[in-house]
């Protein structure tokens, strides 16, 4: 592992320790039982610790570890997504195929670095094969709805998320052996933007962006969060093959995409009448609640970097 990896790791642990200490002091001084905001903050900090631990552990095993980690993230995300959709008995084989074939194959294609196939495997082949399989079973009740939900689920949970580990395979001249740091850059920027939007929203939030979708997304939070996270991204340029300005521009783009990801995820949850995607981390939301922004940011980030740097 390079010096940069060590620096990044120490930096992350430092940030989390600071956050934990602040939240601990706030919780200690606050009246009991804790107000929901503080409860939520504690839960988020705990989730970040778990996330950092999980990602660091996967990094120890290199590319294979990161691919396996994100294959698991996709599995968990897909499971949460499918739980909220309409499924009928006739969908069994399609659904099983999504979990047992599509997800492993997509990540295997990334492992063997077959760009030509992993970028069209789901949007072309699965796009056609899944409704064909469902149609073969003959149940036409809400057919369009079921098929569309499956397509969306596999695109969001597997295809989009798989572009995070795919970053390792990009042959960027001068960046050999530093692919994992590019992943760290993307995750830190996008997750940092989530956190900072939340903080700015709590501190200064007045005007809601989309009141009918999410009461917690405000213009103040959005602008403050994205601006500060993009500055942070520019400051993390040393992780990447980019100049500080390039890193900042890519960070803005990723943060904006991340915001849209969160917004779309909220709209789906609102449609289904649920607050959280699941209960992965002690009843405080599921995988998609933390990964929704990455879902939208990863493929766009991937393709821009691939187009401009390789």
């Amino acid at each position, binding site marked *: 592992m390079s010096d940069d990896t060590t620096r990044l790791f120490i930096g992350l642990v430092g940030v989390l320790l600071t956050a934990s200490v602040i939240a601990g002091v706030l919780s200690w001084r606050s009246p009991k039982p804790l107000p929901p905001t503080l409860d939520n903050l504690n839960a988020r900090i705990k989730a970040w610790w778990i996330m950092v631990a999980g990602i660091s552990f996967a990094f120890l095993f290199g590319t294979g570890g990161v691919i396996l980690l994100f294959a698991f993230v996709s599995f968990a995300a897909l*499971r949460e997504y*499918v739980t909220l959709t309409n499924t009928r008995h006739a969908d069994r084989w399609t659904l*099983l195929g999504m979990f047992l074939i599509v997800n492993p194959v997509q990540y295997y294609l990334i492992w063997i670095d077959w760009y030509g196939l992993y970028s069209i495997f789901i949007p072309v082949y699965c796009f056609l094969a899944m409704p064909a399989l469902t149609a073969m079973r003959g149940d036409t009740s809400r057919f369009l709805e079921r098929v569309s939900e499956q397509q969306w689920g596999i695109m969001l949970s597997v295809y989009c998320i798989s572009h995070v580990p795919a970053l390792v395979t990009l042959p960027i001249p001068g960046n050999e052996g530093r692919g994992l740091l590019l992943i760290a850059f993307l995750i830190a920027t996008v997750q940092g933007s989530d956190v900072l939007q939340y903080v700015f929203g709590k501190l200064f939030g007045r005007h809601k962006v989309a009141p009918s979708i999410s009461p917690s997304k405000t213009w103040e939070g959005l602008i403050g969060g994205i601006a500060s996270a993009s500055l942070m991204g520019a400051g993390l340029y040393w992780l990447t093959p980019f100049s500080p300005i390039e890193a900042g521009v890519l960070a803005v783009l990723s943060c904006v995409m991340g915001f849209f990801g969160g917004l779309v995820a909220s709209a789906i949850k609102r449609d289904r009448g649920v607050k959280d995607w699941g209960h992965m981390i002690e009843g405080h939301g599921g995988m998609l609640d933390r990964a929704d922004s990455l879902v939208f940011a990863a493929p766009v980030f991937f393709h821009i970097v691939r187009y401009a740097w390789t």
Partner: protein
Amino acid sequence: MRGGASLLQIVSGSVLAVFARAVTGVRPIWAGSAPNGRQRIYFANHASHGDFILVSTCLTPVERSRTAAVAGADYWDSGRVRRFISRRLLRTVLVERNWVERTADPMQVMIDALGTGQSLIFFPEGTRNMTEEPLLRFRSGLYNLAAARPDVELVPCWIENMSRVLPKGALLPIPLLCRVVFGEPVRLDEGEDRKTFLDRARQALLALAPQRDGDSR
């Protein structure tokens, strides 16, 4: 030997619990009946063979090792594979549901099992619910157990989504999130008649089902 379970049963119980968690991410919601070490009858809605695995996965390892599922002998005692699963691998109390041909009174079999200190997982509908109704009418078994052993806690358990994971006739489970909601124990009141009690127990179980349009999840 713990709670009368064989080593094989304890091991296969733990393996199944790990598997059930991997597939369904199941989480117990203790809504009025946190684990307290007392002998219990867990009565649950029933639509899938996976139901009792889900309930036992939610229990503490000690409680799991002394908990047996009440299952139909006509199904689980027919054929060598099923008999191996139900008698060797899992902890079950097999009862004969067929009135005409049965050789042992199912009530007596269950009361004997309770007599050895076991907790039971019990499906008061008597069979898997294949209808659109959320819950069928309860058979009288639950009332008879409550009357025979008033000291045993009757805990309603609402199993959510398992029928989508593993419906009737399916071999491979689809990974979907499941929950089991454990409600407040139901007690047979002094002089309460059979029908009133069964209705009340059924309502107590139904009340644990999630409201689909609210923020209950």
